[in-house]
């Protein structure tokens, strides 16, 4: 066909477009600054009373022995864990909502959280990764998981098995987004039932330990685990970002995406498998943390729109900010008790989600 003639950008059109893009970049920069501020606030939150100056000195390697120990051994792993896990859950939620064409898709929709919980329950109750009762008050203080590695491994296996099951089930009749969502609902229901059955035959201490595990705990992961989550999240981010225009095309529907040359039959299952791997690893190391994967993409859609060039990095940063803020709230609300992070994200996330629905009438 005749090529479209190359017409120089009219000054107004060019200016408008560049202003529009600059605004999105500014939002991303503001989110990055906010994530850093939340990280510093999280380093400062706690009972030791460290000042910002002492924290910065410790970070630069010039702090006292005590402040360095608190910052690097106690608080920094927690901050890094929140950054990595928040980013992973939010980014995967954003991609799952796109490829499943469902605004309610997240690790829970896929059944990953339920699968991981089932894995943890089996390891604690059936395999004997078990518990011991310590001195102290409160259920959380008296319960300890004796073999955290085994629990993590079983939780990961549960999460990843869920995904494999969903992908296989949906493959039987062709992997359409709706079949994946329905398979996710069915498999998560299966695992929830399995967890209930396993708990039914266990004693009360073991049941309490399983429940404690599902609360979620950012302090559970060590540097090795955080490194693994971070590497996987980074690799997934690179994959998703390389396909950002393909995700934009998928927003227009599967047929339109195919007609634009998007390899839909590869991209949808590949994205799902990557999301499942990253969320399974995250859930296995820190427990069930709900709502981050669901709410972060919706908040960011309102700020940067549905353009995945900006939505992917914005959602990733938003997830980190949300989880860091929730973790700060967990530690400062009723000191010295550290509230369970999973419960708090649900507690804060649900009203925020309802507000977003009421504000615009519907989630798009």
């Amino acid at each position, binding site marked *: *066909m*005749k*090529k*479209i*003639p*190359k*017409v*120089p*950008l*009219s000054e107004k*059109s060019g200016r*408008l*477009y560049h202003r*529009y893009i600059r605004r999105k970049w500014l939002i991303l920069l503001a989110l990055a600054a906010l994530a850093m501020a939340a990280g510093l606030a999280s380093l400062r939150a706690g009972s030791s009373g460290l000042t910002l100056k002492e924290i910065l000195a410790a970070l630069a390697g010039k702090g006292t022995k005590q402040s360095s120990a608190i910052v690097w051994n106690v608080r920094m792993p927690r901050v890094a864990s929140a950054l990595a896990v928040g980013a992973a859950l939010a980014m995967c939620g954003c991609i799952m909502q796109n490829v499943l064409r469902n605004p309610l898709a997240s690790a829970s929709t896929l059944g990953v959280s339920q699968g991981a919980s089932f894995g943890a329950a089996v390891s604690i109750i059936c395999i004997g990764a078990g518990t011991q009762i310590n001195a102290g008050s409160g259920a959380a203080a008296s319960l300890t998981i004796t073999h955290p590695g085994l629990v993590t491994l079983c939780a990961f296996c549960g999460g990843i098995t869920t995904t494999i099951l969903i992908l296989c089930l949906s493959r039987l009749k062709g992997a359409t987004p709706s079949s994946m969502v329905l398979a996710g609902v069915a498999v998560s229901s299966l695992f929830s039932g399995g967890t209930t059955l396993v708990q039914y035959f266990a004693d009360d201490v073991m049941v309490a330990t399983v429940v404690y595990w599902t609360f979620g705990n950012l302090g559970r992961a060590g540097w090795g685990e955080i490194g693994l989550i971070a590497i996987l999240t980074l690799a997934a981010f690179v994959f998703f970002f390389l396909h950002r*225009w*393909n995700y*934009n*095309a998928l*927003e*227009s*529907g599967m*047929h*339109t995406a*195919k*007609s*634009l*040359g*998007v*390899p839909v039959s590869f991209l949808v299952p590949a994205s799902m498998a990557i999301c499942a791997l990253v969320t399974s690893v995250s859930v296995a190391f820190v427990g069930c943390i709900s709502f981050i994967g669901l709410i972060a993409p919706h908040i960011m*859609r309102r700020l940067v*729109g*549905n*353009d995945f*060039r900006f939505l992917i990095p914005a959602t990733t940063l938003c997830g980190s900010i949300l989880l860091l803020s929730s973790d700060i709230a967990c530690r400062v609300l009723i000191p010295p008790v550290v509230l369970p992070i999973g419960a708090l994200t649900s507690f804060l996330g649900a009203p925020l989600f309802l507000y977003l629905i009421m504000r615009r009438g519907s989630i*798009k």
Partner: protein
Amino acid sequence: MIELRHIGFSYGKTRILSDVSLEARAGECVAILGNNGAGKSTLITCINRIRQPEKGEILVDGRPVRRMGRRELAQNVAYVAQKNELSQTTVLDCVLLGRRPYMKWGISSEDLEKCLAMLRRVGMERFQLRNLSEMSGGELQKVMLARALVQEPKVLLLDEPTSSLDPKNQYEMMALVRELAHERHITVLVVIHDLNLAMRYCDRFFFLKDGKGYCYGDSQVVTSQVIQDVYGICGHVAEIDGKKIVVIGSV
């Protein structure tokens, strides 16, 4: 130029298309006509391999589409679906998607220039940063047309582009399609139900009946007998001011 040779397609055991053949030249606008369920949409989605035909061969400028990679196919054949899923995105971002088959890392200034030029051509440049959900049906179809045209295709497939438009927008849309097809030498295959709209703006007419090609040719093939056979209704073809119109009688 596009050539369809003996295309066959089934959904499971239900045969939708059998032995459909069609040929159209560059710059021609071909109306695909027939009752609901005749296989019109299936036929055009077989052309750009959204659906894989079981039998037959499709050639664009003599090259079989089954040998083309996804990108190459998208550079040759563009498609506008019957229903557009609207995302929270701007008009310009939507049209930029049409440059996806040419993108390497991201959009270039050339891509941006071509998209803005196309938006200007279809009269939508002033809406470039407006959200798609704020557009009317007619404006939206023009945006989708612009997105398909920035793919710089040889063949443009339109699945009922006027089905949700008012009469004024229907005529405007079809006039624009015809104009662009002639101007850029694109073969347009358009699935359409309105016979009068087709008679006015299309060069050739392909009637499908029960998944088979019933007849194909210029406006001479549109006769009362064909309308009776394909649609099961009485229709008369009249001529007013040199233009052919179809007057539907009884069912």
